[in-house]
């Protein structure tokens, strides 16, 4: 479950992207694993921009991202529609934390889900 944050959240944009993808799961002889998603539907994207967070709030988001394996999905509630999405991932852009003052942080993170 994506962490809940008390601080101010400004959703920069909330969009739908059309990304036709192939599905492929492969494990190679070297034990490396490669996976991708197949979907004919839209990808839903939330660009979340938190401003003036306290340190513990920024670190809650950071810890969540750091502890999450890449492409691991989690639950996220759309802050606009209050609708629960069960399989959401963090985009390959990762997380961006800006310390703007001694105890003030802005955080940007982009989430993606198959609708």
């Amino acid at each position, binding site marked *: 479950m994506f962490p809940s944050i008390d601080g101010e959240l400004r959703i920069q944009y909330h969009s739908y992207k059309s990304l*036709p993808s192939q599905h492929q799961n492969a494990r190679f002889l070297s034990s490396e694993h*490669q*996976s*991708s998603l197949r979907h004919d539907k839209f990808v839903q994207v939330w660009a979340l921009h938190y401003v003036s967070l306290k340190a513990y709030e920024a670190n809650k988001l950071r810890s969540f991202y*750091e*502890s999450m*394996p890449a492409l691991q999905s989690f639950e996220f509630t759309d802050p606009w529609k209050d609708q629960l999405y069960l399989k959401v991932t963090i985009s390959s852009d*990762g997380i*961006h934390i800006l*310390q703007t003052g001694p105890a003030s942080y802005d955080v940007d993170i982009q989430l993606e889900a198959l609708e």
Partner: protein
Amino acid sequence: MEFPQLDSGLIVQVPVSLRIQKRMDVNRFRDGSVIKNTNSSQSQYTWNCKYVNLSDHELLRFEEFWHSTGRGAATFTFVDPLGNMLRDTENVLASSWTKSGTTEITEAASTGQYKEYLLTNSGTIASVVSQVIDVSPQFSVLFSCLAKWVSTTAISLVSSDDSGSIRKSFTISGESYCGLKIAGGLQSAVRTFGIEVPPQSQVIVSELQVEIALGRGTYVPSAAGGVFHKAWIEPYDFTIKTEAPGAHSINLIVHCER
């Protein structure tokens, strides 16, 4: 090779930013399809450090550092300015923490948002719960924790290396933040930070932190620790902008993988 320190004792100015990205190969094919490959469990950390109004001798330190890295070719150790240098601060039972003597560590029922640990010394000599981390002797660091006990108890914060030790003792009644400032006095880059519990005593501790700071900053829970080895600067560019005599600006982008 050590990252330079400002006259203030800090290593960055605010604002400073950090981007963390999981290592991932994203390949898009001609039909628009995408394959994301997650072979690596590593993440790339990128700090954007902007410095303004650097004095001549602060700038000189950065210039010397830049040249000592072979103009960006060599790696160095970098301390995450947004992090906590200790490891496993939310798991004092982890192997990165060692305990001496008869100390027992148990997780206490936390009343706050962070985990709390009960340290019990039932022996006849003081015991220490400690962790070893790499800290350049040039840096002034602050070792701190929140300590609490229902009645009165005592602890000491201790930092030591091969050349000696520095300690500060505290009487705890209720709860209070304890801090040990270390500015010089120790010579080694490998240093132990510990909480010493007197004989026949107990204390609850949480929010353990070591940071390069002027005063105690907000606690940052830490799993892997904020000391990053083999960091590098990229792009290989060291541009100095001088706004006035003795007032210089530079921008360094530091990367590391973990």
